[in-house]
């Protein structure tokens, strides 16, 4: 998680782990709901890529 850019990390933690709504996250981070969705999508995708990289290294 620490390897994600700040805004993507913040969005993943607040939206997915803490379970806040898109509207709440946009209020906290002071950006639009669309921006929150974009950061979340990119953050989760990047996370998945990094984990797949680790899995491939281990096999």
């Amino acid at each position, binding site marked *: 998680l620490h390897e994600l850019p700040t805004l993507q990390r*913040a969005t993943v933690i*607040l939206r997915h782990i803490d379970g806040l709504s898109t509207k709440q996250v946009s209020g906290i981070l*002071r950006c639009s709901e669309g921006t929150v969705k974009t950061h979340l999508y990119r953050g*989760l*995708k990047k996370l998945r890529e990094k984990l797949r990289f680790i899995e491939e290294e281990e096999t």
Partner: protein
Amino acid sequence: MSEHSNISRMLYEYLKGELDPDDYGKVDEHLLHCTRCQKDIRELNAAISIFRPVVRPSEERSEEFWNTFALEVEQNIQRTEQHGWKERITETLQQWSPTRRWVIVGMAGAAVTLVLAVIASRTTFTPGVEETPPEVTELESAALNIDRMSQYFRKSKTLLVGLTNMKMFDDQPVDLNAERQASRELIHEARYLKRQPIDMRSAQLINDLERVLIELANLEESSDIPDVQLIRSGIRHENLLFKIRMAESLYDSSRFVRVRQEF
């Protein structure tokens, strides 16, 4: 914005079942012919499943319950602080049943007698012999640790409350120099406290606090709002302020059972 970008931003809510009813049809139709989004949705699903849901004990009760509970504890602490130690003991004794009262008083009397005997055996008066400086007893050492623990929690609470209530303005970085310095000092103190014999709950709280303090200490001197918000989120996530309040009340009340040397 293209239809594809629009659909990509909806995929998370689609997987979580949080979309508006009209949008499900749009996403389903798009997924029928877009192989990129089909791949994306598989990736997203895999990423989401990494984080297993954790049911925190605090979530088993409602938020209202915990707010009321914290308030009652706070009021209780204030009430006991207003009375002197004699009135407090009298009040507590009156709340107990007579049998329990006598058992506890008897045990306290036995404990006091034992401590007196220990002190007496260590301070035997021998005329004409030079007195050597007394070593720090285990009781004194424990008392010092209680004081340091209490101070550590008080300072941590002050730092975290200040951070939580800090005003921030758009497009202006936040100056956290004082907070970083304070967190470094508290990390140093935490390392000392962890080497002392302390109860498991306090040790766990120190570990939880240390994670947040380390994150704060490692921030840039002038930080962006998202970094501060992350730390605030960490404080909330761990219920740190509530746990610190509980620990403070424990260490403040433990002072009353500490035996003083004047005895």
